[in-house]
């Protein structure tokens, strides 16, 4: 269906005098005519709880800004005006969106060189990111400090943001991919990773690909949701929400204007699992999304992926194109008579956009600010329509469940945490990398599987910056949802960052606090100011040789409680958890 292009939805928008250059106009035009099958050209959006507003092409704002950034090297006033006018978006709002993202620049850099992003988060700090930075600086590179780039298993990480040239990750060219557990017959989610040719639909089919979709079509939506529910599959992004309940809720909403979103925006420091899944098994992401679409009756699929993942993006795009060409996406998916197609969107450097409602706003062309819940995404999600959001690990689990039934899935793991779980091991560990073990595996066994801690173990950060530190006395803790909750810990997104006793833990904790300060969207007061003040307290502590005072300790607790209780979203809710666990374990805060 061709896009219905109309005049500006807001006819009296005012644009400044700055005009786009020819190159800028070309960068804009390269995006806007594209409106593939899954595009929503005209939408009605409920704005913050009441009023509605028409937004014709606004959902193309972020892709257009990406295009300008990539071709020109920054978003100039003329470029912004051109984009805003073409899309019918007020320029002030377009500027608000452009300034939200780390990968977009709104000040003239004065050059057209590529920008080299160097990760400053814990795993890369342990692996010598400072030395790397010094070398790059000496070579005259345009270096930019970056939060976690999702390559912690091959730290220190680099990401090169191209101007006029493709983005690239140098490590992609230099290393052959090798899964540490390659050949292990116990692998389920990782079974095809490193085995299948990720660029070939043919190869995917040879490894059992698309059998699950055929089975799902035969079973019908209700039976598919029933086996997912019976399996006890829960979300792997951190919140562990039961997948079957989510799919059921979306399926129960009327109409076909519903969405399935694959949340590939993992940005939790220490997380790289979804990058590897998308790079090494992209068809599995596409197939499982399609099953979710048919099961929930959604006809629109979206992949929202980190802007720092060029290879995963290319492989997913290729997989979508091949699936579409083979009738596995489109108006009649694999002869099912149902419509489902997928559009891919790139994030632009914002941790908060992994929060599902911020992700919706980002796709819709608004600032990536989370929405208050309720209403929940299952009724008011993307474009205010019913939406199921899952991450790749969760989705791929559904494939085997559909084929083998829930009992096989439940034969691994524990009663309340069935199945297997991916863990991202990094830091002071023998063989960093992505591992899959059954839920319930003790932490110490997981570390041993990865070659054991290097040096004398001091602490493990479970769940990333939003997680908690645990000490060497927790090695017996079974890695399940229930056991970690009991221990006031979390599995989060499966991050396991290992620290030995030579690590400056104060620096690590200050960096975690800085991460939250930098990544807070700024919308709600508890998080916007709380993350700032928390960082200030820790910087003060770092600069002093005295132990944390009672007053400061109380202040940290008071701020934490307000962030947990009164913030809008999970970022604020978890912004103090690692800090407080470091204090209670005595990793920081003592006299040196």
């Amino acid at each position, binding site marked *: 269906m061709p896009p219905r292009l109309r005049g500006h939805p807001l006819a009296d928008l005012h644009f400044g005098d700055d005009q786009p250059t020819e190159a800028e106009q070309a960068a804009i035009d390269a995006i806007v005519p594209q409106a593939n099958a899954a595009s929503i050209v005209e939408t009605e959006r409920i704005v913050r709880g009441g009023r509605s507003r028409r937004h014709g092409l606004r959902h193309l704002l972020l892709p257009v800004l990406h295009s300008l950034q990539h071709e020109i090297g920054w978003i100039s006033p003329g470029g912004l005006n051109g984009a805003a006018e073409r899309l019918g978006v007020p320029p002030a709002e377009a500027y608000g969106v452009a300034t939200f993202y780390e990968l977009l620049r709104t000040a003239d850099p004065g050059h057209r060189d590529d920008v080299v992003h160097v990760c400053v988060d814990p795993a890369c700090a342990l692996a010598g990111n400072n030395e790397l930075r010094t070398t790059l600086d000496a070579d005259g590179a345009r270096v930019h400090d970056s939060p976690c780039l999702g390559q912690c298993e091959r730290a220190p990480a680099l990401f090169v943001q191209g101007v006029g040239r493709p983005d690239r990750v140098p490590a992609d060219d230099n290393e052959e991919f090798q899964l540490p557990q390659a050949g292990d017959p116990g692998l389920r989610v990782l079974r095809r990773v490193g085995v299948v040719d990720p660029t070939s639909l043919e190869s995917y089919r040879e490894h059992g690909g698309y059998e699950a979709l055929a089975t799902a079509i035969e079973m019908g939506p209700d039976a598919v949701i029933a086996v997912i529910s019976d399996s006890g599959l829960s979300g792997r992004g951190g919140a562990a929400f039961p997948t079957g309940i989510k799919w059921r809720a979306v399926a129960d909403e009327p109409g076909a204007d519903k969405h399935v979103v694959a949340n590939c925006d993992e940005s939790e420091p220490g997380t790289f699992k979804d990058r590897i899944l998308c790079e090494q098994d992209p068809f599995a992401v596409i197939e499982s999304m399609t099953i979710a679409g048919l099961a929930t009756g959604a006809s629109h699929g979206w992949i929202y992926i980190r802007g720092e993942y060029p290879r995963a993006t290319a492989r997913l795009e290729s997989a979508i194109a091949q699936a579409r060409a083979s009738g596995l996406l489109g108006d009649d998916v694999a002869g099912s008579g149902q419509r489902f197609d997928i559009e891919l969107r790139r994030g632009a450097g914002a941790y908060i956009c992994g929060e599902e409602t911020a992700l919706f706003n980002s796709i819709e062309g608004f600032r990536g600010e989370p929405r208050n819940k*309720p209403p929940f995404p299952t009724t008011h999600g993307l474009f205010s329509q019913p939406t199921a959001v899952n991450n790749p690990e969760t989705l791929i689990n559904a494939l085997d469940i559909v084929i083998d039934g829930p009992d096989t899935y439940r034969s691994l793991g524990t009663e309340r945490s069935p199945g297997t779980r991916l863990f991202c091991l990094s830091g002071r560990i023998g063989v960093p990398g992505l591992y899959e073990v059954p839920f319930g595996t003790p932490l110490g066994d997981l570390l041993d599987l990865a070659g054991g801690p290097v040096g004398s173990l001091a602490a493990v950060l479970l769940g990333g910056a939003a997680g908690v530190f645990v000490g060497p006395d927790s090695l017996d803790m079974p890695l399940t949802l229930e056991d970690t909750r009991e221990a006031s810990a979390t599995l989060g997104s499966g991050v396991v960052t290992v620290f030995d006793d030579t690590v400056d833990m104060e620096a690590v904790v200050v960096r975690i606090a800085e991460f939250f300060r930098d990544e807070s969207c700024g919308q709600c007061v508890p998080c916007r100011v709380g993350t700032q003040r928390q960082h*200030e307290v820790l910087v003060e502590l770092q600069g002093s040789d005295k132990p944390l005072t009672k007053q400061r300790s109380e202040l940290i607790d008071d701020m934490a409680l307000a962030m947990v209780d*009164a913030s809008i979203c999970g970022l604020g809710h978890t912004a103090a958890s690692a800090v407080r666990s470091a204090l209670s374990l005595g990793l920081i805060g003592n006299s040196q």
Partner: protein
Amino acid sequence: MSGAITETAVTIRVDGQEVAVPEGATILDACDAAGVETPTICYGPTLTPVNVCRLCVVELDGSRALVPSCSRPAEEGMVVHTDSERVRHSRKMVLEFLTTGVDVSQADELGQWAEHYGADPSRYVPGGETMDEPVRVQDNLYIRDYDKCVLCYRCVEACGDDAQHTYAISVAGRGFGARISAEFDVTLPESACVYCGNCVAVCPTNALQFKTEFDLRQADDWRPEDQTVTQTVCSYCGVGCNLELHVQDNQIVKCTSPDDHDVTSGNLCIKGRFGWNYV
């Protein structure tokens, strides 16, 4: 709503007291109905709630985190606590957070609430980040002093969806560095601003001020206690907007319109808001 004569009522408990409110009303409405005073700053009676300041949070039985009363619809059987330890704590912290980074000296209500909840901004690390913005004086109609800005979004909403549909300003940047801004922070005359002044009308902290008020304050001659307010009807067109002319020393110093006026809901256009020099 057409043809509906009777409203469905929902009954909720606020601090142990049963109150009935019409369906669609918020918890804040129910608190008002119960006579429970609630601190707010981003909430405005003429604006769609954006629930960002978190000052109006209440404890709702069955909810893990506190909920913003301004935007959460009241549902039958809800049990709400507005004065629990958790509520008092979060309100106090929000007030401390606001007063540590922002000049709230002209936000009277905020100061009263800060006292009420025992907020103590002095217990933070000395020299912490503040808004640190110069006053923007770019024309003769109104000024923007973002040192006083609490980022309540009210001006953005009034300029945009809630009243004017001009969209001259937005929130730009992220986190503590977020600021209200036109594109590339251009001056207001260069921006889409139409000088309706509806942003000034909804600003809760005086970050947006009439230039007349700003000049008098600079001269240390702003005397609200000596001012009178004269109600009249705007003489420019036939719409019939009510004006409230604030007069000091026989000079008009600013102009507002009542929030509850049928025609304006507090909003005016450039002529009504600023075009009174001829008087």
